[in-house]
């Protein structure tokens, strides 16, 4: 069922490149490996992949520049591979339009879950998976965009205007890590020194109302210092 999905891997480490290729092929995807910037760019334009896995540190160029060039061309989902401490790199890549990031070393299950999730998001963006009645559902949570109402297991959750806007924005980007600055720009249109705090307070209220428990599977995941993922 996955055979129609073409995944471009741009990663200079031979072993990692092979590993990811093997994992993808085992799940039925078609893997297209590229080992440097130039090849990655060429293969992107010749193969038109459905998803791209991109390592930021490439021998002949910055992965970030490749991401920028590709975003000029299309909204193909991009998952960035990065090392642990480069939080600012992750935020920069996400703000440039990357969908998600995976920190090295990663487990195969983790990477494949991200791949599936990114492809789902892409399908929704192209309109095929969006519910015709304008709702979002997941594990008992129901968001009715038109009526601006939220339910968990049929009982209504009362959210403020801003809280609803944040939740509906996150749900529309579900599967994608949304950075603090992206949410702030979407909700308030401007940002000042207190914006992140304002967002954090709203998020704390949303979590409480949705009954989130730390460490459990919740509707919204926290990416510390980066943003949120729904």
């Amino acid at each position, binding site marked *: 069922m996955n055979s129609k999905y073409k995944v471009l891997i741009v990663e200079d480490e031979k072993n990692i490149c092979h590993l990811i290729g093997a994992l993808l092929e085992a799940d039925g995807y078609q893997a297209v490996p590229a080992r440097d910037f130039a090849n990655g760019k060429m293969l992107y334009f010749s193969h038109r992949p459905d998803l791209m896995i991109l390592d930021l540190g490439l021998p002949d160029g910055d992965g970030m520049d490749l991401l920028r060039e590709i975003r000029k061309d299309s909204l193909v989902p991009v998952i960035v591979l990065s090392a*642990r*401490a480069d*939080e600012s790199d992750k935020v920069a890549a996400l703000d440039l339009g990357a969908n998600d990031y995976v920190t090295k*070393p990663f487990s195969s299950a983790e990477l494949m879950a991200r791949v599936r999730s990114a492809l789902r998001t892409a399908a929704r963006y192209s309109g095929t998976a969006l519910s015709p009645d304008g709702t979002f559902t997941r594990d008992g949570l129901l968001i009715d965009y038109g009526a601006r109402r939220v339910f968990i297991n049929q009982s209504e959750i009362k959210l403020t205007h801003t809280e609803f806007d944040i939740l509906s924005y996150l749900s529309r980007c579900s599967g994608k890590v949304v950075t603090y600055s992206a949410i702030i720009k979407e909700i308030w249109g401007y940002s000042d020194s207190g914006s*992140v*705090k304002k967002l*954090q*307070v709203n*998020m*704390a209220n949303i*979590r409480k109302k949705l009954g*989130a*428990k*730390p*460490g459990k599977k*919740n509707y919204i*995941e*926290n*990416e*510390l*210092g980066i943003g949120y993922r729904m």
Partner: protein
Amino acid sequence: MKKFPKHLADAAFTMFLLAACFALCLLIQTVCGAHTLIPAIFILGTFLTALATNGYLYGILSALASVLIFEFVFELPYFSLYFTLTDNLVTSVIMIVIACMTCTLTTKIKKQETLKSQSEMEKMRADLLRAVSHDLRTPLTTIYGASSAMLEAGDGLSAAQKQQMLQSIREDAAWLTRMVENLLSITRLDDSNVKIIKTSTVLDEFLDAALIKFHKRYPEQEVSVELPDEFITIEMDALLIEQVVINILENAVCHAKGMSILSLKVSVLSEKAVFEISDNGCGIEKERLKTLFTGYYQTENLPPDSRRSNAGIGLSVCAAIIRAHGGTITARNSESGGALFCFTLNTEETADEQ
């Protein structure tokens, strides 16, 4: 820039001591007329100057000034510098020699002290590195050995054996990952020129991220969480504090034998967030408690049990991280017998008021 006020303070201190000695001697001479005490008082003054100031300069200046004052004011004939009298000359020379030697000695001691603390730090780092490098060999041996065995003798191995080998490769790779994370944390802290970058972090977001990471490694282990209802933010390097929480939880999983409950409780006490991680396992041996947070450097004599060492380095890293955040960390056994780790961090209200 910073040297100037320091020199000023030293000079002022020297002047003050000289004046004090002078006044004391004057008092002694007018009250009891005995001037045998006077050289001793000046030597004491010089000694104190050398002790409290930096370098040789002020000690020697103080000695010279003492000799001059002594000759001019207190030595016969009064109010003249009369060095030709043999015993006056000898007294002066002896005083300068004593002053210089005192000064040299105290300066030397000061230098040695700084050297000693530097070399202790260096030694600690070297010991740590040696111990870690030693520990790295065990998992590497497993990974290298098991993977080569599967490549070279793959056909001769049973499915169960292969499964077993793959299992140990994964376990040891996971162990190496954790070790490398700890080492990365240490190098981030050791670079004393770079202050850790603290950002305002929401407590429940932080705990959620830390616990999810912990559950990824130990899916079986439940952690009961208790935290205050209000919105709390803490200035911290979230990656490092996350490491602290995970290391302590992991320590419980690896060492608290018989544990059935692992809990994490956060409370706020006078602008401090108090994190308490407790278990109902076997507790910590008394002699281990003393060196728990520094103990890693002394584990070389223990049998080569990599997991034990990892816990050791984990707790040492915890202590270093918490100290760098200006907090405190303690460990003890609770009344019920299990281990109780406690660390504190400043909540943001205090930082805001500054």
